[in-house]
């Protein structure tokens, strides 16, 4: 599988990264080089092999349904580029 400029633009848009035509042009061969190389995995016979998600056997824990943290709104907002009235502020979404 290989990517062309249109595909790179689409991926960049999915990833919400603005790109210039020049950047896209440079990325096409770079990504194809990497994708061509990872293509080698198709040689491996993985019939009947379950995908590995957890490397060390571990069980997900449950905890009591209690509030253990919170009440730190100002700390949470302290690093916001724009905080107003105790909220994160963003450009107008609905006209």
């Amino acid at each position, binding site marked *: 599988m290989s990517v062309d400029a249109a595909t790179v633009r689409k991926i960049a848009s999915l990833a919400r990264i603005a790109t210039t035509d020049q950047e896209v042009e440079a990325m096409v061969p770079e990504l194809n080089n990497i994708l061509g190389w990872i293509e080698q995995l198709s040689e*491996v016979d993985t019939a009947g*092999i379950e*995908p590995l998600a957890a490397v060390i056997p571990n069980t997900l824990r449950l905890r009591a349904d209690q509030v253990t943290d919170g009440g730190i709104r100002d700390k949470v907002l302290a690093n916001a580029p724009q905080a107003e009235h105790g909220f994160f502020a963003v*450009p107008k979404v609905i006209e």
Partner: protein
Amino acid sequence: MTALTDLTVAGIRDGVRDGAFSAREVAEAFNAAVAGAKALNAFIVETPEHALAAADAADKAKAEDNLKPLSGVPIGMKDLFATAGYQTTAASHMLEGFVPPYHATVAAKLFDAGAGMLGKLNLDQFAMGSSNETSYFGNVISPWRRNDGGNAPLAPGGSSGGSSAAIAARIVPAATGTDTGGSIRQPAAFTGISGIKPTYGRCSRYGIVAFASSLDQAGPMARDVRDCAILLEAMSGFDAKDATSLDLPVPDWEALLSGDLTGKRVGIPREYRVEGMPAEIEALWEKGIALVKDAGATVVDVSLPHTRYALATYYIIAPAEASSNLARYDGVRYGLRDLPDGANLQDMYAATRADGFGPEVKRRILIGTYVLSAGYYDAYYTKAQRVRALIARDFERAFETCDLLLTPTAPSAAFALGEKNADPLAMYLNDVFTVPASLAGLPAMSVPAGLDAKGLPLGLQIIGKPLDEQGVLDAGLAIEQRAGFSARPEAWW
């Protein structure tokens, strides 16, 4: 008397305890060393006041006979660990100016154990890189130089390149690192120091800027194996804030250290003899085999048949997880916001991320987005997870006939800055020996074992069974005791 900055973590701890010197003297010596080594660019932020405050607390604790395990020991903190009140950037423009309101669990554990912080160490941006050339804050320069008189600036390895350079230059006695595909071990090998990545789940990931969550593990980097054991004890332990944290007691690794490998079987994986391996790396490996035999181990030939697919597997899984993890940088809650005139929310996301991420980070996000996108998910991501299962199974089978594995850490000595960054793929290949253990979540460490013809350090890697950090540390110690590695870079900075 030995210069205070030449002391190991154990030496500082014991000296403060025995009253040979004060913790404040130690902190002042290292603060001065840090201030005098700006040419290395190892630090993004220096925090001498933190080191001094911890030192004063240690001296007070000494007077009150109330010393903690790391009282008096100042360390460097990779700038991937959140530190309350201190800028934490992951070496990115995206997080420039970000001051976390909380500590990463590992950082908090080290501070609670009495350690002070000399500063936040430079790294590859979001820990993505093998040479420390992707940092927004500039390259870290290795303190080492080739003996050919050329003085070409060398890579300290990556991504924990600030950590490795600072330790090798003796401006910090030890530092934290993180390892996703080799980011502790490869820089340790490049700079002639030791570093261990423990079993996945030993150290909490809480508060570590996430790269690839199923692979990321914190670990210590230091000048010797004992120091690694001391620090790993302080850093490890269950943390309810990390869903993959292992709920197990932390062993007394330091107290149990032994360089006697009698009865141990050390496996030599034949697939690690890769094509084009430099003769010097082969020779180093042979030397390592002789050293572990001398320590009482028997050496057995083992096979890890899927080794050659590990890198390709890694470069699907790690970017996939990264593209998901780095989706959080959207210019809303923290970090950079780039809001062009008249831009809407979507434009703001795209502009912020275009401006805030460097080229290698973007490359990996795009690869990850592609392999996870509709129609390609099974062909790439699920396939890689299946091959990952086979790689883990290879290790399980090998460990039926041996206790530990011995390999070179990296396929070469440190390369010069700029030598490999034109081709991303050439850079990725540098992780060939470290990535398989990461994929399988196994403990692994690098110890210095010799120099190449140009006078640069080379490292050997020991890989252990899950949770057998003790076996890994013991084999590391056995090599350290016998290799007699004492080279250090001559100060030019």
